[in-house]
């Protein structure tokens, strides 16, 4: 996992598999595990001393003491455990749990001896009698249950980790998706300009570098709209070199509040799409129109491009990827509050983004 992503530096390394045993859900889990073990033990007992419920209550009380003390022990030792390797931390945790069981069993035994030593016949088997037998049995059960519980937490953690990293990988894959075609064509353009127009070639290299930097940003980065539009303009400049007068881009974005924060890479992939699918297949080129409007608390951005309808030509594939990518970014930034609409108006293809307006921290 990427360290720069973890938000609270005071928390132990995020990859440690044991949960925080001071947190309520974990304590609840410990109580549940203790109760389940209590039920199993009571059910497994061949002859009940005082009937099922009394026996269950008695076992529960004992096991809850062990369970909650173990949780407390793990809670306090977690920062130390987190710094160890998985094997070592598991071994130490297991030792800790067995030690807790040992202490509580001892205390229980001696309590029984101390308070009810004389009344053993009256209280019957409320407290254990055989010392060594009692301890050994408890330690053995504790060992098995603790090992199973640790294993459970480990697997649960691994599973969550896999799911998370899979989701991240998917987004990253979408993100690292500057079209290879664009990259190589740009390189070709630059190679050509190096001799005919070295100054322009230099600018193109700078533009390309900035564009890649923007593409390599963290997925969740929010940047001022001004910067986001600037990235799209970089892209436009590179494509203009290549396509010459065939590419025209019209910007109607004066109305937009430029300091509003938006997820990065909203506009550039859509402009890229518009050029790739709309302008490039047209022998005489065309105009991409980028317009924005503020609508109360939300922003509307739309990118339109002409559609070519040569009878033989099949639509270029890959259109969906960019749209899905942008849709996913919007959803990540504004869950359930943003929209991406696609309109195919015959001779014109329009992608419209609608998302809530968020002022930058500086001006809020």
């Amino acid at each position, binding site marked *: 996992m990427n360290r720069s992503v973890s938000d609270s530096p005071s928390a132990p390394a995020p990859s440690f598999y044991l949960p925080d045993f001071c947190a309520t859900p974990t304590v609840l889990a410990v109580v549940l595990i203790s109760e389940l073990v209590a039920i199993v033990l009571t059910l497994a007992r061949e002859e009940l001393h005082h009937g099922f419920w009394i026996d269950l209550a008695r076992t529960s009380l004992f096991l809850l003491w062990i369970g909650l003390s173990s949780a407390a022990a793990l809670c306090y030792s977690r920062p130390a455990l987190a710094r160890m390797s998985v094997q070592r931390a598991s071994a130490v945790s297991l030792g800790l749990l067995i030690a807790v069981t040992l202490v509580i069993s001892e205390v229980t035994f001696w309590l029984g001896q101390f308070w009810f030593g004389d009344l053993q016949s009256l209280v019957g088997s409320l407290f254990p009698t055989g010392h060594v037998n009692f301890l050994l049995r408890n330690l053995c059960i504790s060992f098995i249950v603790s090992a199973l519980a640790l294993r459970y937490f480990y697997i649960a953690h691994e599973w969550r980790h896999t799911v998370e990293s899979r989701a991240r990988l998917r987004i990253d894959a979408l993100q690292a998706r500057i079209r*290879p*075609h664009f*990259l*190589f*064509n740009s*390189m*070709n*353009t*630059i*190679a*050509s*300009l190096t*001799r*005919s127009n070295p100054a322009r070639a230099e600018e193109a290299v700078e533009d390309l570098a900035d564009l890649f930097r923007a593409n390599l940003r963290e997925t969740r980065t929010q940047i001022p709209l001004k910067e986001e539009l600037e990235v799209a303009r970089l892209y436009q400049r590179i494509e203009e*070199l*290549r*396509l*010459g007068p065939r590419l025209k881009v019209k910007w109607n974005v004066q109305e937009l509040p430029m300091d509003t924060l938006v997820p990065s890479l909203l506009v550039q992939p859509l402009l890229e799409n518009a050029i790739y699918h709309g302008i*490039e*297949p*047209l*022998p005489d080129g065309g105009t991409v129109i980028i317009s924005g409007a503020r609508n109360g608390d939300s922003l509307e951005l739309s990118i339109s491009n002409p559609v*070519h309808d*040569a*009878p*033989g*030509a*099949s639509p270029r594939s890959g259109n969906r990827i960019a749209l899905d990518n942008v849709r996913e970014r919007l959803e990540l930034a504004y869950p359930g509050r943003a929209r991406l609409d696609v309109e195919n108006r015959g001779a014109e293809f329009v992608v419209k983004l609608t998302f809530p307006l968020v002022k930058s921290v500086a001006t809020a």
Partner: protein
Amino acid sequence: MKILIVDDEPPARERLKRLVEEIDSCEVAGEAANGTDAIALAGRVAPDVVLMDIRMPGMDGVEAARHLGQLEEPPAIIFITAYDEYALRAFDTHAVGYLLKPVRREKLADTLARASRLTKPQLAAIARAAAPKQRRTHLSVRARGELRLIPIEEVLFFVADQKYITVRHARGEDLIEESLKTLEEEFEPGFLRIHRNTLVAVRHIASIERSGEGQYSVRMRGLDVELPVSRRLATEVLRRFRG
């Protein structure tokens, strides 16, 4: 060696031109920005080699190469691409010369030296592999050593003869050497088979008339011909035309 450069991007053409001119024994015979222009130019300058970009607006490089292959003495073709997985695989399979952008000078000289003509089957195979579902935008007819292109949207119908196929189009009639079956496969659903030997452009159908008991015929827009519909295909034709 006379070389024709075909690429839709001015800087790409400019660079290729410079590279070619730096090679002895090679001269640039012309430059074109798309497949259609390339074919017109190839007729005039008769190049030995065409450096052909694949992705171009209008007619792409693979289709242009196919048309050029119809010439009496077709030029050698070297494809150029920035990145095109399908095409590259096809080129490797059929041992066709290609260059990757940005083109290296030594590679260019080397490939030019080894350039050879592609055969028609080679060209057809590349077209199939490089652009699987893509249809040609034009048909080409050889006329006095040059190629004439017929835009597909101007084709009214094809009628098969024993050996040739007559193409009836907006500007007249031509003979081409192809099979009706492959034409049908390539251009469906825009074209509809109405008879064993007839394939018509759906968009140019004016009407379907009943010409007798269970007999139908198709009339095309702007033409005074009746094309008979075979009994076997009548239901399908009626369904398509009404639907």
